[in-house]
């Protein structure tokens, strides 16, 4: 019944998980520990990922500002979140932790600057 295979990444053992649904219950086979069980169920029902990317910034020491989500967001929403971020423009200066986009695409996670960036000095040459 819609069986899926995953390699567990909770620890370096790399257990091969088989996950399937049976009578409304998610079953995991191949896990070596409880954390692997939870990982298998999570990957099967609602896989979550951290979002890290860069956004355009004007007047900064670099043209791109790296950003990170404040928590994991559903994997299937990643592309939508990236598209939303790429439409935004920011101006330096920015402090590490500044919120770039609140509750991105309704995921409940904020996207924050992952470094501080000052203004570029006016042209040196």
């Amino acid at each position, binding site marked *: 019944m819609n069986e899926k295979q*995953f*390699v567990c*990444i909770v*620890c*370096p*053992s*790399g257990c091969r998980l088989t996950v399937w649904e049976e009578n409304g219950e998610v079953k995991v086979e191949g896990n070596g520990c409880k954390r692997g069980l939870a990982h298998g169920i999570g990957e099967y029902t609602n896989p979550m990922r*951290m979002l*890290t*990317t*860069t956004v*355009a910034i004007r007047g900064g*020491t*670099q*043209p*791109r500002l*790296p*950003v*990170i989500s404040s928590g994991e967001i559903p994997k299937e929403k990643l592309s939508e979140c*990236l598209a939303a971020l790429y439409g935004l423009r920011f101006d330096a200066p920015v402090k*590490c932790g500044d919120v770039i986009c609140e509750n991105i695409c309704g995921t409940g996670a904020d996207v924050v600057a*992952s*470094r*501080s960036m000052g203004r570029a000095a006016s042209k*040196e040459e």
Partner: protein
Amino acid sequence: MKRVSVDVAVVGAGPAGLAAALEARRSGAKRVLLIERDAELGGILQQCIHDGFGLHRFGRRMSGNQYAQAFIDEVEASGVEVRLGTMALEVTGARVIYACSKSEGMLEIEAGAVILAMGCRERTANQVLICGDRPAGVLTAGAVQRYVNMEGYLPGSRAVILGSGDIGLIMARRMTLEGIEVKAVYEVMPAPGGLTRNIVQCLDEFNIPLHLSTTVTRVNGRKRVESVAVARVDKNLKPIPGTEETVGCDLLVLAVGLIPENELSRGAGVALDPRTKGPVLDDVFMTSVPGVFACGNVAVVFDLVDYVSQSGEIAARGAVDFIAGGLCRQPQYVPVEAGENVNFVVPQRLRHGCAGARLFLRVKKPLREAVLTCESGGRMLMQKSLRHLAPPEMIAFDLAGRIGDAPVAVSIREVTRE
């Protein structure tokens, strides 16, 4: 030429140099100078926008930028003197650094102790013997990372990656998310070079194939890469005739290993270890030249930044001890020997009578269950059970207790169960 005199001079402001400069201040050094050739602090972490850093030190998953920023904020508040845009040209065995910068010209820095933290370099196409044309579009993974993550350029549209080290895997995911089609990753060895979790998260997740025991043999294209030839290799890593295939691409990304950058160290007369390609170090990470210390990837290529920072702190405490006269100028050493299943151990030697050390090692092959032992002169100094060991994952541990005058042998014995 401008002359300055400092207690501790640190060369390079990546994670190792930042940690070393901070710890030198914390340990009581008055004048700590941190010199960096880039325009900003952070070193390679500036381009590591992905998360997974800092689990050991901060107990949470941070991006490389966040990890660097935590140290940068501290350095800026610490009284460490920072000189950006300053390139160290020469370090002498007498702890004098010659450097230059646009704003100040030549600089002569006289230091009580020098900490080398220049990091490592990527191996290039010339070091992996690929034949064929020399078109544009052959880049190292780190260069692609800098273009994409910092400068906002996409250096190609269809990529082939050679080498399955962690940087190559991370860039496979990153390029895919930015719209570059990653055709495949080729690895000459029979096992992947990177961590399993990166294979899963960066390749499997995006259906990027990984071809083991396969390598790129030829680059085709006059001005720009048009295709590469790949072939399977035999046990001796030689391409097998008749297995060659052509893969169309306009970007060949090389993730074929890192080498400690020791040009300055050699100039200072520092003895190097052929296995780590970094300086021979002692328990306080001092090199063979008194008062010259090394830490981070210039000492040995680490895999976790947390360990890089630790090595910087060890070297800094050693450097402060050295200028205070607490370290013997000509210490007596005992070697640390890499025994069964151990590829290398850093530090390579310990001072007689030192009160233990933090050791870093890599195993030669994957081991499911094993026991790590440190013995000296028939005495068992420590014993520790370990699971799931693999060459890409460095093992760090503390060796406690006074070190005598017999060599210390570090071995890892495999435990086999019925």
